[in-house]
């Protein structure tokens, strides 16, 4: 305090002495003299400008770091970056406080107390890597290679966790995706043969359900949506139990009853087929199963859907007609986070089917196939481990899990049950299951099952807090990253990379260096015998000149085909067409057409707890950001005024929210922006880790309260199936 104010007064002093001199020269015209002084040219800041890509969420928006004396002083958008339309959001701008967070991990730490007790010993990197290698070797020896679990979040270095796991011999790898988007991906993949991108910019009519694009920012979709609406006259219809900012800016909003979106979509199909609003020739040529679909949706009249969703039947029928009128430059927006119900894959299938029926595919304003980026993989031959078990620990629990993403919830249950085998080692990079997976107590149990847990992160997340060994990783501005290919819908298909814009802080190392260090100690060094720039050269081998362009512009564009990608190409489905009716599902005993199930009724005196996003939050990684904290100091529980009245709750009251697995205290935000039967809070707050000084003991942890249901097709978490009581705390 005294040091900084001293500095300021000293600077002020020099400035003032100059002015006083100017004033003296001016003589009688005192103010005139001063005015001359202040008209002096603005000093040009001596900053270096360096390209990078943001890492505050998964989008990887292009940025330019302004660096002064080795310190990043500002992050600006890269105006040449089409995917993000030359913007940087609040979180992107606040990246600076993630890098310079005083709570950042600074050196390797070894747990010396009980798990979660917060007692740590600083050790050297050599000690840390020796220990990690030794413990991983022990787990491999005692429990087979597949007895070690690896979890990695969305990060350009995460591929090295996957590579390490494979050469170590474990196929038990989980990503964050089974807490997020796998249901949606499954549904669209099983309809179109691939996961599409939305040409929002050129769309004329968008139905958005289960997505909140003006708060959960996805580039370019969020920005293109506004351009489409304000410049191109696109209509936006939003279904959401909350009056989100997306709802507020929509042309129409319906507070849909949670869990009933499928009824709405099937009713759209009912009207579209009943009134023959589709292009029969296109449907005949490109799709499979119209007849079955027509038969199937007969029962789902707008009246039926209206009873289920609480949206008037006339509105549903009108929306169906308007959507069909705008098709194929129209869409049911696919959304992203689809971890909500036990039948989420089927819910999202109903979205995909309406798009298929209307031919909103491979043409402007509809859904688009992935474009060619041209980046190549860097293959390696992993050793084979005969002694391993046959399959993943979470295998065979659900029929259509993505093998390479796994199911976190099923893995956790299997680890706890040691069924079909034991897992005793866990390596975690840049993902924070303690904050993001439902039922935090169960995740702690999972931690307790482990002989040794290693966490590599930039912050002492709750997951790190429960680990044995915590290794400080470099932030995105301090390291070399492999290239990444990005799909930007009709805006672009592009390649990005990251070079360090500042020297690594403290003793931090990149995940790649950590993996390499451990591999070298386990006779696996040959698989990491390269540098990131060398790795990038291999990735870019079929894009000559791309590296130079990346250095010049911070991004490389592949001018590949945008529309008509499927002209003369077969679809990767059994029928080789867009499958309204899924043949593979039929063979596997899964409903080939989505069958509507009435969601469990909210029990009396309880609420359905829903999750959702805000443009200032990225799950469990932003609540300790000092800049974002100033705009969003805590989380609150949204509760409708009528419900609040019933439970004698007034705005700002402290309430206890409790489910069958946990309880938390939080301030109530009484607002009509939510249905009466539903409550909502943001994730990421109230960390157990005391080394997150802005997030610890602040607000409530949603992970503590959410129960652990899952999508029965993919094993994706079902985050909207928890019922809670809300009780006012008596002061």
């Amino acid at each position, binding site marked *: 305090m005294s040091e900084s104010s001293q500095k300021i007064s000293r600077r002020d*002093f020099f400035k003032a002495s100059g002015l006083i001199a100017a004033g003296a020269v001016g003589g009688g015209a005192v103010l005139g003299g001063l005015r001359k002084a202040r008209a002096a040219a603005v000093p040009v800041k001596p900053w270096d400008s360096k390209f990078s890509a943001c890492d505050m969420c998964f989008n990887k928006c292009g940025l330019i770091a302004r660096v002064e004396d080795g310190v990043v002083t500002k992050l600006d*958008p890269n105006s040449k970056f089409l995917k993000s339309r030359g913007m940087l959001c609040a979180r992107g701008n606040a990246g600076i406080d993630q890098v310079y967070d005083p709570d950042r991990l600074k050196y390797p730490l070894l747990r010396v107390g009980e798990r979660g007790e917060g007692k740590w010993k600083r050790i050297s990197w050599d000690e840390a890597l020796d220990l990690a290698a030794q413990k991983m070797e022990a787990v491999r020896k005692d429990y087979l290679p597949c007895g070690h679990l690896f979890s990695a979040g969305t990060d350009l270095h995460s591929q090295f966790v996957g590579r390490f796991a494979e050469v170590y011999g474990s196929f038990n790898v989980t990503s964050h995706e089974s807490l997020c988007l796998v249901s949606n991906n499954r549904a669209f993949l099983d309809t179109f043969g691939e996961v599409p991108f939305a040409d929002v910019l050129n769309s004329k009519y968008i139905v958005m359900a289960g997505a909140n694009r003006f708060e959960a920012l996805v580039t370019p979709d969020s920005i293109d949506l506004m351009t489409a609406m304000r410049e191109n006259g696109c209509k936006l219809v939003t279904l959401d139990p909350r009056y989100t900012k997306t709802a507020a*800016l929509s042309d129409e909003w319906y507070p849909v009853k949670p869990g009933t979106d499928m009824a709405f979509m099937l009713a759209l199909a009912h009207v579209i087929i009943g009134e023959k609003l589709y292009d029969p020739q296109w449907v005949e040529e490109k799709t499979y199963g119209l007849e079955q679909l027509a038969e199937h949706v007969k029962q789902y009249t707008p009246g039926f859907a209206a009873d289920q969703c609480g949206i008037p039947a006339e509105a549903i029928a009108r929306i169906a007609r308007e959507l069909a009128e705008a098709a194929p430059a129209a869409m049911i927006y696919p959304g992203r986070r689809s971890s909500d119900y036990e039948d989420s894959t089927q819910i999202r299938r109903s979205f995909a089917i309406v798009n298929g029926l209307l031919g909103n595919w491979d043409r402007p304003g509809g859904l688009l196939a992935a474009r060619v980026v041209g980046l190549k993989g860097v293959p390696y031959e992993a050793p084979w481990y005969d002694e391993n078990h046959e399959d993943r620990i979470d295998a065979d629990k659900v029929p259509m899990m993505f093998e390479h993403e796994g199911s976190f919830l099923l893995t956790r249950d299997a680890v706890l049950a040691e069924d079909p085998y034991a897992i005793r080692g866990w390596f975690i990079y840049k993902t924070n299951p303690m904050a993001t997976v439902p039922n935090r107590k169960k995740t702690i149990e999972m931690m307790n099952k482990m002989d040794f847990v290693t966490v590599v992160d930039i912050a002492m997340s709750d997951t790190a807090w429960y680990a044995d060994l915590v290794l400080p990783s470099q932030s995105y501005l301090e390291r070399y990253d492999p290239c990444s290919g990005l799909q930007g819908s009709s805006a672009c298909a592009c390649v990005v990379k990251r070079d360090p814009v500042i020297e690594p802080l403290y003793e931090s190392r990149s995940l790649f260096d950590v993996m390499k260090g451990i591999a070298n100690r386990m006779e696996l060094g040959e698989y990491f015998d390269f540098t990131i720039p060398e790795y990038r050269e291999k990735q870019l081998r079929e894009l000559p000149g791309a590296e130079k362009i990346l250095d010049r512009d911070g991004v490389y564009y592949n001018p590949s085909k945008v529309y008509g990608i499927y002209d003369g190409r077969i679809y990767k489905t059994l029928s080789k067409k867009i499958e309204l009716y899924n043949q593979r599902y039929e063979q596997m005993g899964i409903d080939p057409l989505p069958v509507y199930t009435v969601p469990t009724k909210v029990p009396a005196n309880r609420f359905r707890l829903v999750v959702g996003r805000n443009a200032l939050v990225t799950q469990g990684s932003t609540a300790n950001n000092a800049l974002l904290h100033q705009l969003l100091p805590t989380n609150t529980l949204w509760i409708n005024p009528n419900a609040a009245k019933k439970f004698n709750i007034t705005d700002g009251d402290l309430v206890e929210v409790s489910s069958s697995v946990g309880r938390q205290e939080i301030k109530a935000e009484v607002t009509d922006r939510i249905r009466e039967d539903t409550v909502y809070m943001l994730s990421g707050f109230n960390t157990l880790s005391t080394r997150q000084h802005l997030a610890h003991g602040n607000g409530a942890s949603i992970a503590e309260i959410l129960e652990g249901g899952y999508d029965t097709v993919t094993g994706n978490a079902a985050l909207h199936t928890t019922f809670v009581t809300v009780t006012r705390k008596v002061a």
Partner: protein
Amino acid sequence: MAQQLAMIIDASKCIDCKGCMIACKVANNVPEDQWRNWIKGESGMSRPGKHNGTTKFQPGACMHCDKPTCVEACPTGATYKDEMTGEVVIDESLCIGCGNCIPACPYGARFRNATKRKADKCNYCPERRAQGLLPACVDTCPTKARVFGDINDPDSEAGRLFLKNKEQLTRVAARTETKPNMFYIGDPGPRDWGGEAVTPASMIAMKEAAPFIKGIVGLSGLGVLAMLGRQLIAGSDTDHKENDDV
């Protein structure tokens, strides 16, 4: 013609993401919990069904007014209207941190910078402009709801928007007319929040003494130097008691 730097805002494009607020804060090193800019939200009830896009989020900041009441309230001339650019400028080296200008702005655009103890507000990022960059809030805005430039220059983006939308440009009117240079295209969203400019009585008295104004200004200029010196001495004293913002 002299410039008039201004902002043309399309409030209907604002998604209330707060990118502009964090960008400004970082670019200008604005202290914790103080802000040079804002987004005001509509507090209207949520209504299911068709609502014709009535909700607006309204980005704003210092409006660099043509009739800046803050300039009148400043005893030292630290705040002035730059005749070349049309900006309302604070010369920090002249500001004594008296706080008179803060209630004099009917838009609440000014505050006393907690670190510098001087008046602070949006200055359109001169350091950035000197390097050919846009003000931080404009540069970062996802939907480009904020457009900055010289509205007297028909070739600039701001000038083009200014001319094109001349008929439908609106301003957020405060109870005191200050002729702001922050223009909104069409409905600006919340309109009724602007207050009344409160100028300290002593400054009004000074204005009334018009025949002697030159002398007084001259004297006050000398006074400025004295007060500046006092502020410096006080400023380096760590237990200096800070005046509360009004």
